[in-house]
């Protein structure tokens, strides 16, 4: 029983780390721009497809594939902000309408990927999978990479946000957009920046996922839903909150297996979210109420 709990906790920590990365990738954009960027799922799909194509068909190495996913994700996210969202802001579109446009972009984009690449599932080849045993717990090399990769990226991002000029500027826009303008920060440029960074991160997160799961045109939706949950769990506007939210979510999903029958497994995440929204709408680390 104890060994099982330890194993489940490890599994929870592993998936929780990836959720944290996904959560932060979306939460950074949401906190700074207040755009409910549903099409983040499409960014993930596009980035991973580009990499799968490069690695699987053109014979690129896996590290190059990761790099490509980050670059493609970044460019795609920036393009989305420039081509779709900025024109909508210019005409004072409501946040609901911006959300709907994001939905539209997601539907259209997924369909385009399907038309071009077909519905069949693909694999991301080239990663040596084997088991690692560490005392009472065991995990695969893929999971090891999830853990290491997610935390490396998370810590890098947090360090950048806290200790650099532009990182600080982004936190400023997230905290108080008008005052940020008053001190001479251009929020439009910061929007581009967070779309670039968040989208690169979700591309990398998608690659980590693709090491384990097969890749299909709708691969992006489930992880991005998870990201929403992590962000709202932790409290919108708080990057550490999104990390915590991701971890809590991963742990809850896996530890829930101890208490709940099997068919609840897939819905635990949403049940957790439901409860948090009902009992603590501002999230675990949320500061802003309203």
């Amino acid at each position, binding site marked *: 029983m104890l060994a099982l709990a330890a194993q489940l906790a490890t599994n929870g920590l592993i998936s929780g780390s990836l959720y944290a990365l996904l959560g932060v990738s979306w939460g950074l954009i949401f906190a700074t721009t207040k755009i*409910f960027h549903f099409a983040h799922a499409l960014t993930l799909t596009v980035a991973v497809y580009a990499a799968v194509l490069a690695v699987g068909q053109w014979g690129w190495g896996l590290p190059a594939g990761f790099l490509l996913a980050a670059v493609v994700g970044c460019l795609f996210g920036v393009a989305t902000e420039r081509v*779709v969202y900025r*024109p*909508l802001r210019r*005409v004072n*579109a*409501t*946040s*609901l*309408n*911006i*959300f*709907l*446009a994001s*939905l*539209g*972009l*997601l*539907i*259209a*984009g*997924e*369909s*385009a990927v*399907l*038309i071009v690449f077909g*519905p069949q599932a693909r694999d991301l080849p080239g990663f040596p999978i084997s088991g690692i045993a560490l005392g009472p717990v065991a995990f695969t090399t893929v999971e090891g990479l999830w853990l290491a990769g997610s935390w490396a990226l998370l810590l890098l991002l947090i360090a950048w946000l806290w200790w650099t000029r532009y990182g600080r500027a982004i936190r400023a826009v997230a905290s108080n957009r008008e005052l940020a303008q008053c001190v001479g920060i251009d929020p439009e440029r910061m929007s581009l920046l967070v779309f670039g960074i968040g989208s690169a991160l979700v591309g990398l997160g998608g690659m980590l996922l693709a090491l384990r799961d097969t890749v299909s045109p709708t691969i992006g*939706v489930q992880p991005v*839903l998870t990201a*929403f*949950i992590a962000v*709202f769990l932790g409290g*919108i506007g708080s990057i550490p909150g999104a990390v915590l939210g991701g971890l809590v979510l991963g742990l809850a999903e896996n530890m829930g297996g101890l208490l709940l029958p*099997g*068919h*609840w*497994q*897939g*819905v635990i*995440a*949403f*049940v957790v*979210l*439901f409860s948090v*929204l*009902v009992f603590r*709408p501002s999230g675990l680390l949320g500061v802003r109420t309203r």
Partner: protein
Amino acid sequence: MDFWLHVVNMIGLFIMLGVSLNLLLGYGGLVSMAQAAFFGVGAYAAALSARDLGLPFPLTLVVAIVVTTLLAGVVTFPALRVRGEYLILLTLAFQMVIYGLMLSWVDLTAGRTGISGIPRPRLFGKTLVTPAEFLPLIAAGALVTFAIAYRIGESPLGRVLKAMRDDETATLAIGKSVLRYKVLVFCVSGGLAGVAAGLFAHYQAFINPFSFNLDRSIFLVALVVLGGTGNLLGTVAGAILFVGLPEVLRFLQARQDIVDAIRNLVFGLLLVLFMRFRPEGLVPEHARGRRRQGVGQPAPAVSVTGILPSAGPAHDGAGPALVAQGLRKSFGGIKAADDLSLALPRGKVTALVGPNGAGKTTVFNLLTGFLAAEAGTVSLQGEDITRLAPWRTVRLGLARSFQDVRLFERMTVLDNVLVALPEQPGERLGPLFFAPRRTAEAERRNRDQALGSLAFVGLADRAGEIASSLAFGEQKLVALARLIATGADVLLLDEPASGVDLQWVRRILGLIRQLAAAGKTVCIVEHNLEVVTAVADHAYFMEAGRIIAEGRPEELMADPRLADIYFGTSRR
């Protein structure tokens, strides 16, 4: 032939689903990403009750409707507290929970396999199997669903929903329980989706979770938005265009999944483009020909007393109409109200004056229940109203206006006033459907009353215009007409003259005097002491959450101590 009839049937089902969602989204302003989940739960309820319990057809439909209505009621409770992004996420989570259960609760739903062998319905001794045989049933279902939704949407009830959509706080301030209407619209929307669900299960004779996934919910939201929110005809047009037309693609002899993908591609792009260039959708809420209300009707002759409905019994007793005692409220260490007591004498205009940040608006919020006081009591006509919700205080005869007017911006001027009238039978489902004559008569009377209110403030000729298109001064007058329409005897006006030109100020002040002369008890918060002098009989002077002086406005202005507080003291 059967293929085309099938397409028509699918359009019928999507009309039902779209209409049910439009009530929620377009009228109530509540975004739901879970309409497919309700649809699915209803379908499973009908399928299981028909196959496993052996219930006959019309009963299974009733089961589907009851189940979806109840489920909607349950979901509403967490949803009541949230709006905007949170509501999107909450309904998204609900959609995923339901979909997850459909897939994994194999004992009940058979998982991915789905439920087959759903009995074909028998109606009038005939078993319905082919699309042609189903067509009359589905057409009837669509018609009834549309009629119900239309009846609700275009009634006083629909008007309250739109008010709630445009501004929840202002809806509370005209005495409508936002809570009640949210539960109501969620339940109605769920129930209407249940109609489609019951018919769908029998029509297909087979269901599995994939018809009820997130994509379907997204598709429904998109359909309603593209068709036009707040206009049910738009939803019909949307269903025909976006469910029907893509079927033409099938003749390209392409593979099914490619056909679907092309349809979704076009659909998604349209959604993006519409949000940019035509956010109101194909058929806008205020399409031409729908803006006739009140326009061209002669304004009724206006006498002040004639347009002043009274919510409760006339209170002509002695003593002040409203008394507050010992109110306290602080925000993070700043005392916004500090042992504050005041009384509003009946039929008089009282003013609350003082420098910015003295806590005047907070007092209004405490009196009307928008803020809960930490201590103290408020009584209206001798009755304790301290802990009441804002909408209840309005029903008891105490209403307030807002500094920033808070009109229902997407509604017409007339509807802005009309919606505020109390006790409208058409706001409840019972009279709306079962006492149509009483409802219609009340609506006629109310319309005259609202036009009267508008005529009183001099805006009867603008009745048909959209509220947001009016100049700010006119909006203030509409807000005043709306306040009068609540029928409250005690009116709290928050800076009625701020931000408007002098000519409007004079007009507004004149109207306030007339209201007092007609017996209303008025209290104004005002920064401008000239305004106060011109209109108020009595004034309280506030500073830092306390009342530090009271008297006639001229007396207060003559007090050098108050001038010091107002303009600041300085030692040069």
